[in-house]
């Protein structure tokens, strides 16, 4: 059966056998990923218990599969084609598997899969848990059935009399066997004697239980490894001297002084600047500073914020005429550029040889990265191995693989393995960024009812991808600006005719999708307008939303925060509450914020109450963490964190001037309410951003009696 193709039914007929010759003696199952509910099983070839390897017939190549293995050491290993960047996907995956296998969570290992050639290996769009929910449970449930059947045959007992618990099978007489000890014989089971269906939700004991991250102990002891912590043989610390302006180019380099410095191994030119490879990052930074480089200014050198803002304003499409006889609430909003600024700067280790290359970094899009790296190096894709590592935050930043391509080019040019790290200054000054945008929104009212709601936007889009900083970015389809209306913004409210138009200003700037993508600005602005309309109608913001929201689920999360947050309670002057809702990714959320803006220049959000309905919340504790993170994003982007463009360059260069929130800006009181649900999981990682941002803006407006229109406010 080895390697032999066998036609399968229908559209799958071109796919072939998967042969796990390395997993010769263990139970190994595979399920296609991305098709919820697909069954993993198939008619395996009969193979004698004494003769392996085991051939697992699965519907698709292993490349496209979620593969589960029960090792002889009693570990359940699922190599995950997703990246962990703090969102908790490895913990959620381990929980799904532990649930269906009745394995202990500590016995489940979720290493990250390296870049594959085919299949779904994209982490983004808040889709990770929903894409894994079906396949991971199906796989684990089938594995359990086979393990139980193997134990039944070993003990000559009816399979139905056996129980599973703590990574073991138990007989009624108290005997037990670890999954690991049964794995080899389970691998030969074709038809399990017990059901291999996932449990009904009513029997879930792991799914839905607040669970601590599986990597929490590694993190608090400093053992968790990120790209910069790897010890790849010979990979030397590397930094890049970059131009003072965005997209600036090297005219000439005098590297004599730098090369003469101790500990310097190589100085090479790459499209983004000049790279120094040295004995340590200290040596590398010092040598970089000793380079004498003449730079040609980038294409935006004549451009600053004011001009960008006026071009955006001019690019906003006309709203069209309002319905006859209607009264208007019309508002304009501006959002500045925002850095992703993940805590771990972009870092990539590359070992490029004449005929092959190996790269280690944290990537949301490793398959695209592999193709781009191969083409940058002039190697066939098959000769490029991409190892995916956990990332120290992302927020969309690791959709792009700027640093990985650079590291590969530097390693090739310097003819040695390198460990490239962008400095924090590189990270903030050279992008990527959430694009700046301008919004014009008009709500048309007739007799106390909104009959039309029009939203026209313009945002900066990335021009000239072949040159400048973006050439190394690999802006894949994942970061293309969303065209047309967002899934959420049509029909959230009963506002009659809803229209949305968008324009853009193309600039050669490194941009990228930022957590919640366009919703972070589009929906935030709309939630501010909803408050304005309520005010114009003399209505309370919660009461107005309650009567105009369409969906029961959204009304329910709103009611939850209004109740838990004591909406409408008396507040001292200078303090106020604000509220906003959002619906996207098959989920919805409401946020209630209390703010103390007694000093409008230094407001403090004092309390945040969020409620979310994400369908089945696999790990409520992880979901709460995601909501907490989005609350901080809302506080930061509305009140204080953004980027200025001065003459073609980003003004900010570290967290000293890019004012992402710190402890003193965080709400002393935070609570998240998770609505009970048995629906399939929706998305959760990005969901909270627009609601949090909208609620912070609305609270600030009510506390100060002002109309915040340009964000961040204190900038």
């Amino acid at each position, binding site marked *: 059966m080895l390697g032999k193709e066998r036609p399968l039914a229908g559209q799958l007929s071109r796919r072939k056998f998967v042969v796990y010759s390395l997993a010769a003696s263990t139970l190994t199952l595979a399920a296609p990923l991305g098709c919820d509910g697909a069954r993993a099983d198939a008619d395996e070839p009969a193979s004698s218990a004494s003769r392996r390897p085991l051939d697992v017939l699965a519907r698709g190549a292993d490349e496209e599969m979620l593969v589960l293995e029960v090792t002889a050491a009693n570990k359940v290993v699922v190599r995950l084609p997703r990246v962990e960047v*703090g969102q908790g996907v490895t913990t959620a995956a381990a929980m799904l598997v532990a649930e269906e296998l009745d394995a202990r969570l500590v016995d489940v290992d979720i290493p990250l899969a390296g870049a594959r050639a085919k299949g779904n290996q994209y982490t983004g769009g808040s889709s990770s848990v929903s894409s894994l929910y079906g396949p991971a449970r199906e796989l684990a449930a089938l594995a359990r059935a086979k393990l139980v059947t193997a134990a039944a045959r070993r003990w000559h007992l009816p399979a139905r009399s056996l129980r599973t618990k703590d990574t073991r099978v138990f007989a009624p007489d108290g005997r037990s066997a670890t999954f690991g000890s049964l794995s080899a014989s389970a691998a030969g089971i074709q038809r399990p004697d017990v059901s291999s269906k996932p449990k009904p939700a009513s029997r879930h004991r792991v799914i839905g239980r607040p669970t601590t991250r599986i990597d929490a102990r590694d993190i608090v*002891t400093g053992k968790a490894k990120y790209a910069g912590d790897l010890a790849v043989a010979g990979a030397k610390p590397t930094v890049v001297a970059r131009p003072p302006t965005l997209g600036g180019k090297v005219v000439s380099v005098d590297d004599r002084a730098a090369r003469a410095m*101790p500990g310097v191994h190589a100085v090479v030119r790459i499209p983004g600047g000049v790279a120094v490879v040295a004995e340590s990052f200290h040596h590398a930074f010092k040598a970089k500073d000793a380079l004498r480089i003449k730079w040609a200014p980038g294409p935006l050198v004549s451009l600053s914020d004011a001009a960008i803002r006026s071009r955006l304003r001019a690019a906003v499409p006309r709203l069209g005429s309002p319905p006859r006889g209607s009264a208007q609430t019309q508002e304009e909003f501006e959002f500045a550029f925002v850095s992703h600024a993940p805590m771990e700067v972009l870092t990539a280790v590359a070992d490029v040889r004449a005929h092959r290359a190996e790269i280690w970094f944290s990537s949301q899009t490793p398959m695209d990265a592999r193709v781009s790296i191969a083409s940058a190096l002039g190697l066939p894709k098959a000769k490029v191995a991409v190892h995916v590592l956990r990332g120290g935050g992302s927020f969309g930043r690791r959709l792009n693989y700027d640093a990985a391509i650079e590291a590969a080019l530097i390693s090739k040019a310097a003819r040695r393995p390198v460990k490239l790290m962008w400095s924090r200054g590189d990270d903030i000054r050279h992008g990527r960024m959430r694009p700046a945008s301008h919004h014009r929104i008009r709500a048309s009212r007739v007799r106390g009812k909104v009959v039309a709601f029009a939203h026209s936007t313009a945002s900066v889009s990335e021009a000239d991808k072949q040159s400048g900083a973006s050439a190394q970015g690999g802006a894949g389809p994942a970061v293309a600006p969303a065209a047309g209306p967002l899934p959420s913004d049509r029909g959230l409210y009963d506002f009659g005719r809803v229209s949305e138009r968008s324009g853009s200003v193309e600039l050669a700037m490194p941009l990228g999708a930022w957590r919640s993508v366009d919703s972070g600005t589009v929906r935030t602005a709309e939630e501010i307008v909803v408050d304005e309309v309520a005010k114009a109608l003399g209505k309370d913001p919660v009461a107005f939303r309650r009567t105009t929201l369409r969906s029961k689920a959204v009304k329910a999360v709103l009611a939850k925060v209004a109740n838990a947050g004591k909406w409408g309670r008396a507040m001292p002057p200078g303090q106020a509450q604000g509220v906003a809702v959002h619906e996207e990714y098959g989920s919805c959320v409401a946020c209630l914020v209390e703010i103390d803006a007694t000093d409008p220049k230094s407001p403090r959000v004092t309390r945040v109450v969020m409620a979310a309905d994400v369908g089945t919340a696999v790990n409520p504790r992880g979901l709460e963490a995601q909501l907490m993170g989005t609350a901080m994003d809302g506080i930061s982007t509305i009140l204080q964190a953004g980027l200025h463009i001065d003459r073609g360059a980003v003004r900010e260069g570290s967290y000293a001037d890019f004012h992402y929130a710190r402890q003193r800006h*965080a709400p002393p009181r935070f609570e998240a309410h998770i609505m009970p649900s048995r629906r399939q999981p929706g998305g959760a990682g990005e969901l909270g951003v627009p609601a949090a941002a909208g609620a912070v803006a609305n609270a600030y407006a009510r506390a100060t009696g002002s109309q915040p229109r340009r964000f961040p406010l204190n900038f």
Partner: protein
Amino acid sequence: MPSYSFVLNGKPVTVEAPADMPLLWVLRDLLNVTGPKYGCGVGVCRACTSHLDGDEIQPCVVPIADCTGREITTIEGLADGDRLHPVQQAWLDRDVAQCGFCQPGQIMAAVALLKRTPRPSDADIDRIENVCRCGTYCRIREAIKQASRSR
């Protein structure tokens, strides 16, 4: 190159390094002690936070020459074998971490705070400068209060 001797997580070490080499790179690049993280290199983000003679420092701005004969503790040296430090335990109990990258620094800052101020007020906790880009601040606050109570 000059050589410097100090005590790292309870063990004496000697390294050869330029006098102005920041402790962060001595730890990470010469000694392969990677718990302290680079987040800015200029003393702003505090991801590298560690202890020098029990006090909080940012190793990215402390030259190795200033460390001679002194005691340096990084996140790796906080636990007592398998027994976590109470602050680490509180971090686990509250499941503080998201991406985890800032957390070694956060924990070292919290330990130093609790040493100075065993019963920190909210205002004391607000003075912690460490950035957490994932926004785990509310759980950090809870974990510090828990660790403070458990002493």
